[in-house]
């Protein structure tokens, strides 16, 4: 029943937005409040999982299932969705989009949220793939809200690279199913994850290695792992900020969730060493690419996009470092989601005020919008991994896991790359925060409610930084139990 509560509100919101022909603000607010319902459902699932009951399933041949891993992701997706919807364009003050664009935006943004929630709660691996493909299609529709050369180019690249990537992932799924059929014949619920997991030890190792390569490349494209990351900076810098907040914060997390699901199956089939090495290799490469791309950067949205690639790389490395690493990786994922979504929403506010995404033209942010500036600075300090915020703890845990897994050389490289990204990010953000504001920029704060909402996420980050709330720790232990048995 809670599944309905989880998935249905976003569908309802999409329908509502579709029917109300000329877009009106009340629709926006209704959608925002509806998203809180699915957040409640997600939290209910988390509580259910913590209560230790068997994972609830739903639908014909157990279509949907929520175990520890998916419960954690559900909470993340629903939370960021709620945050993004409360900051969607068209709420409150004047917005640069007209009625039709806003209407299209609200329809597809809610469909996008529905697809993500479906992907996370799908028990059937095929349905998960379909949902992830659906996220690409829905989000592609609303990247070019305002038809400019840049947004069209970004959206074309986005739709093409991601669709090609995802289709390769489907090839991987087919190969696994082929191996399953070869092992124990055709079965209707073959693609259900628990069934696949139980059959995994019998699968042929060579076929599973090929299948994992397809899957890793496929979902890696969606997760923004280098060298398949090329669509990410363009898409995130051109999309409207709430959407890019969701894409950067949670869509990458959903793709990583899919990779983790498949990693468990593959590890059961041929032992963890193969998948770990691949993940470490690609993780380190994306960390390298992201860190050095940050050094010379002229657009602050692209800067944030590259920093997402950097953190995806870190999470991949974490996944490849055994149980301790998985714990650190998922803690990192949660912290990164909170920090990055806040930052993208803030960058939207900055763009709205400064009318430009160029770093040169944005300066004196602390004088123009003191509170937003302070939030932006704390966001930057968070993603750069400085103490009061959670990412410092998760990076510490990650590197400790690295040392425990006996890979000091790799950890040294990771530390150096994190250092490069640290200096680059701070140099650019200092340029934006300090100095004299350019003339012609109105001094004045954004809405009080918006700042309060963002302070909420800063609060979450600080709480994660200083302590680890018991429910989250238990949930993460559940995840580790599921992933690195």
């Amino acid at each position, binding site marked *: 029943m809670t599944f309905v509560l989880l998935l249905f509100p976003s569908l309802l919101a999409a329908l509502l937005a579709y029917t109300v022909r000329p877009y009106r603000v009340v629709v926006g607010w209704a959608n925002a409040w509806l998203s809180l319902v699915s957040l409640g459902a997600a939290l209910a699932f988390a509580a259910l999982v913590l209560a230790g009951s068997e994972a609830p399933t739903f639908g*014909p041949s157990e*279509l949907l299932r929520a175990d520890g891993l998916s419960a954690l992701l559900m909470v993340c997706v629903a939370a960021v969705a709620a945050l993004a919807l409360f900051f969607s364009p068209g709420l409150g003050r004047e917005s640069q989009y007209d009625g039709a664009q806003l209407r299209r935006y609200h329809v597809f943004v809610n469909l996008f949220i529905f697809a993500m929630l479906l992907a996370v709660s799908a028990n*059937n691996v*095929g*349905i998960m*793939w*379909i949902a992830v*493909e*659906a996220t*690409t*299609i829905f989000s*592609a*529709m609303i990247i*070019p809200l305002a*038809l*400019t*050369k*840049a947004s*069209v*180019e*970004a*959206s*074309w*690249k986005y*739709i*093409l690279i991601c*669709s*090609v990537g995802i*289709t390769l992932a*489907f*090839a991987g799924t*087919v*190969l696994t*199913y*082929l*191996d399953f*059929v*070869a092992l124990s014949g*055709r079965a*209707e*619920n*073959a*693609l259900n994850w628990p069934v696949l997991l139980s059959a995994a030890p019998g699968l*042929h190792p*060579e*076929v599973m290695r*090929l299948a994992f390569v397809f899957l890793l490349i496929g979902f890696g494209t969606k997760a923004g792992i280098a060298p398949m990351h090329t669509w990410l*900076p*363009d898409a995130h*810098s*051109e999309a409207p900020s709430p959407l890019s907040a969701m894409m950067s914060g949670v869509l990458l997390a959903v793709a990583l969730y899919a990779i983790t699901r498949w990693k468990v199956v593959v590890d059961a089939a041929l032992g963890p060493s193969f998948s770990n090495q691949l993940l470490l290799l690609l993780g380190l490469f994306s960390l390298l690419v992201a860190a050095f*791309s940050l050094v*010379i*950067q*002229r657009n602050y949205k*692209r800067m944030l996009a590259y920093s997402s690639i950097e953190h995806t790389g870190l999470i991949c490395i974490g996944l490849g470092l055994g149980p301790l690493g998985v714990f650190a990786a998922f803690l990192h994922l949660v912290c990164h989601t909170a920090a990055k979504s806040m930052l993208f929403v803030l960058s939207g506010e900055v763009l709205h005020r400064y009318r430009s995404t160029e770093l040169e033209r944005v300066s004196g942010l602390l004088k123009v919008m003191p509170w937003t500036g302070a939030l932006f600075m704390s966001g930057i300090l968070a993603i750069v991994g400085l103490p009061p915020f959670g990412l410092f703890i998760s990076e510490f845990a990650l590197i400790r896991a690295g040392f425990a897994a006996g890979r000091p050389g790799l950890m040294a490289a990771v530390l150096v790359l994190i250092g490069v990204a640290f200096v680059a990010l701070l140099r650019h953000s200092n340029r934006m925060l300090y100095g004299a504001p350019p003339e012609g920029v109105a001094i004045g704060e954004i809405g009080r409610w918006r700042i309060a909402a963002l302070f909420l996420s800063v609060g979450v980050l600080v709480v994660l930084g200083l302590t680890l709330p018991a429910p989250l720790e238990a949930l993460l232990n559940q995840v580790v139990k599921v992933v690195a048995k």
Partner: protein
Amino acid sequence: MYADLFSQLTTLGSSGVLLFGIALLCRRSLHTFVDAFKWQSLVLAALFVVVGHFGHAPELYFVAVVFFALKVVFIPRYLERLARRVSAERESEPYVNITSSLVIASLLVLLAYAITRPVVLASQLPTRGGLPLAMGVIFIGLFVLISRKNALTQIVGFLVLENGIALLAVLGTFGIPLIVELGVFLDVMMGFLVMQVFVYHIHDTFESIDVEQLNQLRH
């Protein structure tokens, strides 16, 4: 006899699909491009029926009908309309000329054979002979996507890639579970519609659908 007829028919069908894929490479004008794709989808639909009949998988018939409707009737018609509407001039020179792209295609098929050797050994189904060909179609779909500059041809390349995977699915597993199959078709259709809308957008903003101009967003 009964089994090898089935496997011969399937290998024949899949080699047909591969042939049309390669034919796709040496087509100049857009119209002939879409035709090659249409014929490829037709052969694939027929293959669905054959596998459905011999492999005693009745739901494959329904899948074949849907596949036929989608990939042979619906998508090519839209592509034609799109081509006319966007008055795509002659296909601009691809990155790789015809002869070298054929050489690369053959190399890719050879690579596909080498890579899918363990898969063929693992699968006991009579239709396992066609698996390397399916992988070949996948690689060729990818190659078309990379080498063609026109947005429309990129969409066709993407669809060829999808055909390759559908072929892999039907040969390897006699059809994946129905819900997933329908979901895939739904995705393919929606994906195609979105890409089609984007081609119009590109045409409006860039006055031509040559993807070469799409390079302002860099670094």
